[in-house]
């Protein structure tokens, strides 16, 4: 592999990796607030992309379609929490997993009934003239993906560290009673976490659609890889989630590039799961340690 090829793989890996990072971040927000692993997380990504496609087709400019899709999916996240997660507050892990799995199936099939089985495109945010870097090329959309991911991550950090609500959300991940001490109800923190989590994942979905299209069934795979990324970086650790996502994206493309055999791309998806299984077996607390480890 030449350096330029390597660079090309990294560019492509970073693009998908950003989406994994945002999905992993979505997992993390919900997990930290409620200890629930949301198996429907990937569906938020898919819904974001497809909703933006519809809004754009209906005549909304891209920017408006982006914001609209994120807002709509955030609402879906909040409604999902109210209708399905809240009643099971004390029902145990098994019930919570089953409900999010059910939601994932329902959202996915619902999306198929609305948008059909075809993968739908969205135009790139600004042009599709590739930019040359050394001998490798980079699409403007890739820059958008990276830039917006950075903006989201930084905004989230500022929210957590600078605002009272953000501090309450962080306090909740350590101790549910702590939020009450700060004058903010725990149930509001949970609603907010679901809304933000859905919004962030949806934003990822809108950004990636111009690169790789979106279809009703995309969510399952993205969700799984987002989870693999979250585990990789340490479940419950937001910085770890972002790093895990980017690392997973790059590893995935590099592994395929490095494998000598033809048809290796068929194994592309297996790479993420292999990493997931290896991390679970060897170091379940992830590279940077998860929340439960910090607590113990």
């Amino acid at each position, binding site marked *: 592999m030449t350096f330029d090829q390597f660079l090309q793989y990294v560019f492509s890996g970073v693009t998908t990796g950003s989406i994994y990072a945002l999905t992993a971040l979505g997992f993390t927000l919900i997990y930290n607030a409620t200890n629930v*692993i949301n*198996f429907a997380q990937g569906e938020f990504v898919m819904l974001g992309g497809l909703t933006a496609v519809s809004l754009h087709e209906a005549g909304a400019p891209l920017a408006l379609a982006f914001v609209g899709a994120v807002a709509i999916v955030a609402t879906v996240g909040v409604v999902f929490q109210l*209708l*399905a997660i809240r*009643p*099971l507050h004390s*029902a*145990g*892990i*098994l*019930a919570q*997993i*089953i*409900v999010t*799995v*059910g*939601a*994932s*199936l*329902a*959202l*996915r*099939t*619902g999306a*198929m*009934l609305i948008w059909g089985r075809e993968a739908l495109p969205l135009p790139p945010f600004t042009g599709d003239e590739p930019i040359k870097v050394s001998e490798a090329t980079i699409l403007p959309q890739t820059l958008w993906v990276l830039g917006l991911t950075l903006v989201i991550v930084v905004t989230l950090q500022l929210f957590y560290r600078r605002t009272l609500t953000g501090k309450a959300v962080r306090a909740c991940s350590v101790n549910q009673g702590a939020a009450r001490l700060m004058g903010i109800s725990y149930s509001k923190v949970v609603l907010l976490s679901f809304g933000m989590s859905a919004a962030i994942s949806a934003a990822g979905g809108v950004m990636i659609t111009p690169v790789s299209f979106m279809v009703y069934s995309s969510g*399952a*795979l993205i969700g*799984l890889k987002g*989870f*693999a990324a979250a*585990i990789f970086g340490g479940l419950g650790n937001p910085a770890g989630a972002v790093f895990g996502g980017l690392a997973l994206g790059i590893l995935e493309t590099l592994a395929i590039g490095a494998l000598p055999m033809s*048809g290796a791309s*068929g*194994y592309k*998806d*297996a790479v*993420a*799961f*292999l990493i*997931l*299984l290896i991390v*679970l*077996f060897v170091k*379940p607390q992830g590279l940077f340690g998860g929340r*439960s480890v910090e607590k113990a």
Partner: protein
Amino acid sequence: MAALVFLRRHLAFLAFSVVILSAPLFTGNIYYLSILAFMATRLMIALGLNLLMGQAGQISLGHAAFVGIGAYGSAIMTTRWNMDPWLAMLFSAVFAAAVAGLIGVPTLKLKGHYLAMATLGFGEIVHILLVQFKWLTNGTDGIGGIPSLAIGGIDFGDPQMFHWLVWGVVLLMLRISLNLVDSRVGRSLRALHRAEVAAMSLGVNTSFRKVQVLMVSAVFASIAGSFFVHYVQYVSPVSFTLTFSVILVTTVVIGGLGNVWGAVWGSVLMVLLPEYLKRYNQDYTLLVFGVMLIVIMIFLPGGLVSFKTLVAKTRERLGGARTASAAGPGPARGS
């Protein structure tokens, strides 16, 4: 007297056995028998998954892969290596158990969602391998020409004979599942589900029991896969996806966790319902399943088998305390 006690204790099981085994006497219709055969293999999987989820409180989102191991194990060993089908079934089941153990040992020490994720990832890997390992699995084309089962001179390629064979095995699995629930091991599983630390403090080796029940459920699933391919004599990777794993979970949840009979009613419903929905629009089936998972967990966490208890409780509440029986509804149990 002893006979009467025996009859009362096993009434449900005996009645179910009589009904299901006599079915071919009333219909020779191939379509009906094929639905029943399909239901039988579904029930085998559901019984194992019911033990894992309902008793031990653990969840596998990759059970389709264990079915796939049985299906492809039997298909490959009988068509390519000319192995005896029963031996192939046995080897496949042992392999499925070993894989389950491999996944279970590291993950079952951790919280519940780690097993869910590990099995999910494992299921996806198996699906990818089934498609990609063309030299072994024929890829998406699948493997045909799988022989039907036979013992001595009896050919189980005949739908009626197959019905008795497969339901005989199902009844055996149902019986041993009922036995397990009502034993030291069954109680320890329910205990670790409810309060793992308390179970440990009473001497239950919880990690061992969890891994063991995962292995048992993998064996049930693998055997189901083997019977399935010997019946349809063809196998392809499309049957072994995440969606199928979720459908399996739905089967168990709808019937009722925590009660072995839940697996029976869940399988009946989940095999008949799609057949019925198919007449209108097949696309809605999965939507219905997804919504049912949510609705059941929230409103009827005990599944269909607990419906009677729910009705009784509601009536009790409406009718006031006067008519309430002193003993109240007993705890959910298998036998």
